[in-house]
């Protein structure tokens, strides 16, 4: 079925939310451009040609490349060890190695600052600036790459490597020549996600004092109050993100790796580690120690120094976080449903464009997105400015893409014939969807909602710029106290975020039956 005019009246309930979502992403961005172009011509040259911009670009790219390199060095061997070898406890390690996803960047930075340096709980010199940001960002984003490479390793067809071996290549070269190219799409996909995280990250770089575009936008907006320059920096950052997306698209297009026939794809025999086993364990334990055990130990240690009389602030922040995140999850699912439905049931260039817009809302660096919404809401929707509904709306637009995945997956599994049967009984497309399809989508919708919920709890930059006054969440409290070097005060807030996220990561892994 493609989307044709006769279908339209029955689909209106789907089209309206879908178009609203598209507008919610596209309009503020348009507005950001307009706002940036408001500057007087000579001031504009001064803004665009500042040597500072080059420095920021250099800093941002340097961090991006460093993190991509380090995450690859971590994720590639880890994914190999936990899928293709006879390492004992592979499943447990896979779970432990995924859990650092639960630690947001600003919490990682906070742990690094609180635990190291003189007077810290670890006898290490304090790492700040580039090296600190590189370390923290790599250790919290490598799981994305790890998960995507694991999936690729598990789907690898060993016959290719075996064919290479019969042509006289050694095991290592056979892997490199035959198997490695098969991993490239997963590698690139993972790199894209990691890259978007690095470009969008604000918490880590601001706490560790490393000036990237995101940090500079925030500085210009909040401390030096140069709105036009902030808008331009946001545009530069958008261009950089666009370049990353384009590059990934181009690279993926040149890879064609499908199997010619289904053949007899089977699982590879695990590689026997033998004498290398101790080394493998060391390699697997290192990230678990650094990215999971150490932060948790530091957080618990710091929380024990927490002044008890401030507990009221903790419960208030928890309530605020939940009050923003719960409606965000509902709204994100509500927006994802019609978009996924149109994309799955009525595939066309229009529905694909809508889906792209939804993903764009996720790819836009959150700080730039929030800034665009500030300008847009003040000029066009003043009653929404600095209100909780606006914060919820923008968070939902941003995390919508995370809800889309599980919902699409669930939709694909609902047989279309059920809907068609309902249609022959006189239901409109919408009626058929709600009476037949939706009851079968429960799991997908719940998983999508869970992802949006936890995303909203961890999120920092959008909340920082759009929250109503006096509305402090767990995330803003961690940042505020850490900036003031009040590490003990920040601990319970950080701990709550990590525990909440970890619970969700666990639930999601379990529901995907990845392990």
């Amino acid at each position, binding site marked *: 079925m493609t989307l044709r005019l006769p279908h339209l009246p029955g689909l209106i309930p789907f089209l309206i939310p879908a178009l609203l979502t598209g507008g919610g992403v596209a309009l503020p961005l348009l507005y950001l451009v307009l706002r940036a172009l408001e500057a007087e011509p000579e001031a504009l040259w001064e803004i665009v040609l500042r040597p500072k911009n080059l420095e920021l670009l250099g800093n941002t790219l340097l961090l991006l490349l460093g993190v991509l390199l380090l995450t690859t060095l971590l994720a590639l061997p880890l994914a190999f060890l936990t899928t293709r070898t006879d390492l004992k406890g592979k499943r447990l390690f896979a779970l432990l190695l995924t859990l650092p996803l639960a630690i947001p960047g600003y919490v990682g930075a906070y742990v690094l600052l609180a635990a190291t340096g003189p007077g810290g709980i670890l006898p290490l010199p304090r790492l700040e600036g580039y090296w600190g940001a590189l370390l923290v960002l790599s250790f919290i984003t490598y799981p994305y790459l790890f998960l995507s490479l694991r999936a690729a390793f598990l789907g690898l067809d060993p016959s290719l490597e075996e064919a290479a071996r019969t042509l006289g290549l050694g095991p290592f070269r056979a892997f490199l020549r035959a198997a490695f190219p098969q991993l490239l799409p997963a590698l690139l996909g993972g790199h894209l996600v990691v890259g978007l995280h690095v470009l969008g990250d604000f918490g880590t770089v601001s706490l560790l004092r490393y000036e990237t575009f995101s940090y500079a936008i925030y500085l210009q907006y909040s401390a030096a109050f140069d709105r036009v*320059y902030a808008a331009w920096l946001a545009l530069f950052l958008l261009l950089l993100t666009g370049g990353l997306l384009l590059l990934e698209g181009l690279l993926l297009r040149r890879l064609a790796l499908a199997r010619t026939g289904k053949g007899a794809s089977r699982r590879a025999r695990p590689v026997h580690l033998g004498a290398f086993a101790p080394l493998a364990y060391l390699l697997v334990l290192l990230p678990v120690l650094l990215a999971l055990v150490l932060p948790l130990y530091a957080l618990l240690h710091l929380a024990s120094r927490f002044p008890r009389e401030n507990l009221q602030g903790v419960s208030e922040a928890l309530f605020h976080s939940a009050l923003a995140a*719960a409606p965000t999850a509902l709204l994100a699912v509500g927006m994802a449903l019609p978009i996924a439905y149109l994309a799955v049931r009525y595939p066309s260039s229009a529905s694909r464009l809508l889906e792209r817009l939804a993903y764009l809302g996720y790819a836009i660096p959150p700080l730039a997105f929030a800034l665009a919404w500030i300008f847009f809401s003040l000029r066009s929707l003043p009653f929404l400015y*600095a209100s909780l509904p606006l914060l919820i709306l923008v968070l939902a637009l941003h995390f919508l893409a995370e809800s889309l995945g599980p919902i699409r997956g669930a939709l694909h599994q609902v047989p279309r014939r059920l809907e068609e049967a309902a249609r022959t009984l006189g239901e409109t497309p919408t009626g058929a969807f709600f009476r037949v399809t939706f009851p079968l989508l429960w799991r997908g919708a719940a998983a999508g909602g869970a992802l949006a919920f936890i995303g909203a709890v961890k999120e920092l930059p959008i909340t920082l710029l759009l929250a109503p006054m006096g509305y402090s969440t767990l995330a803003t409290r961690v940042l505020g106290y850490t900036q003031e070097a009040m590490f003990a005060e920040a601990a319970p807030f950080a701990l709550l975020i990590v525990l909440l996220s970890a619970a969700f990561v666990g639930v999601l892994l379990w529901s995907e039956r990845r392990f």
Partner: protein
Amino acid sequence: MERRKLLILIGVAALSLGLAQGQTLTIYSGRGQALVEPLVRQFERETGIRVQVRYGTDAQMLAALQEEGRRSPADVFWGNTSGALGQAAARGLLRPLGETLLRQPVAFTPASKAWVPVTLRLRVLAYNPEKFRAQEFPQSILDLPRFARERGLGGRVGWTPTYSSFQDMVAAMIALHGEARAREWLEGMRALSPRVYASNTAMLDAIRAGEIDLASTNHYYVVRFQRAGYRLDMYQFPDGDVGNLALITGAGILRTSNNLTAATRFLTYLLSPKAQQYFVGNIGEYPLVGGVVADPRLLPLEEALAKSPRPDLEQLPLDQALRLLRELGIL
């Protein structure tokens, strides 16, 4: 079916909760949440008035007020610096206040009469006493870059370019010594590759931790560290030097406020002995009304007042200072 109805209900309830907001006093504060939140809560408890505070920097609040224009929900602007308060007054955002309020502070009543000074703080040089003796320091902050260069302190000096008091000090340098001299000072400092901090607390923590040796900051930050038992000292330049600049925090009522009674009560509360004692005791600032028990670590108020030069605090060329900082790539 039942489960779905329940979910929809929960959703509606959650959304409407966010929309329900009663009549409250709305404060835009350039003062840090960590410092003044307890005082706000105390005011709430004592008066029963519900208070909402929007915390941020002075620049952020001024900009928000400008952007919001007549639609601003703010009743009170509680500024961290007199420069920002002066700007708010000059742009006609604030109402003239009554004499009863303006008579109370002992000094610094602004010509505009649109805001009331609440506390006083002085810029000082914070340093690690294991590294320097007070006699070694130069006679003016303007000579600090040269001193640091001679002592080989490259990379061991801190500063807070985004902090409003620092920006006010640069603006006062321009007002007192001209832009060329201020530029020379900033370039000299920049040549030392100073470490940039987002807050004074983090910067002083770095002095405590031995990462840097000295930094210009506000006096009460050093007092707070000393009270916590850390070895940190402050140096004050000879009387009248811009490195000792006095900075005034204060508050005014916005023209957009439709909650005048509550706003006036809040300003009166800030000048009450109880609140002033909080500023001295919990933050370590100088009070601006009499009858407050002083802290032995602080100078008597008259001496503190003599330390600072007296540029017109409402007329500090803050815009010029920000432009200069941006031009030099410091911001």
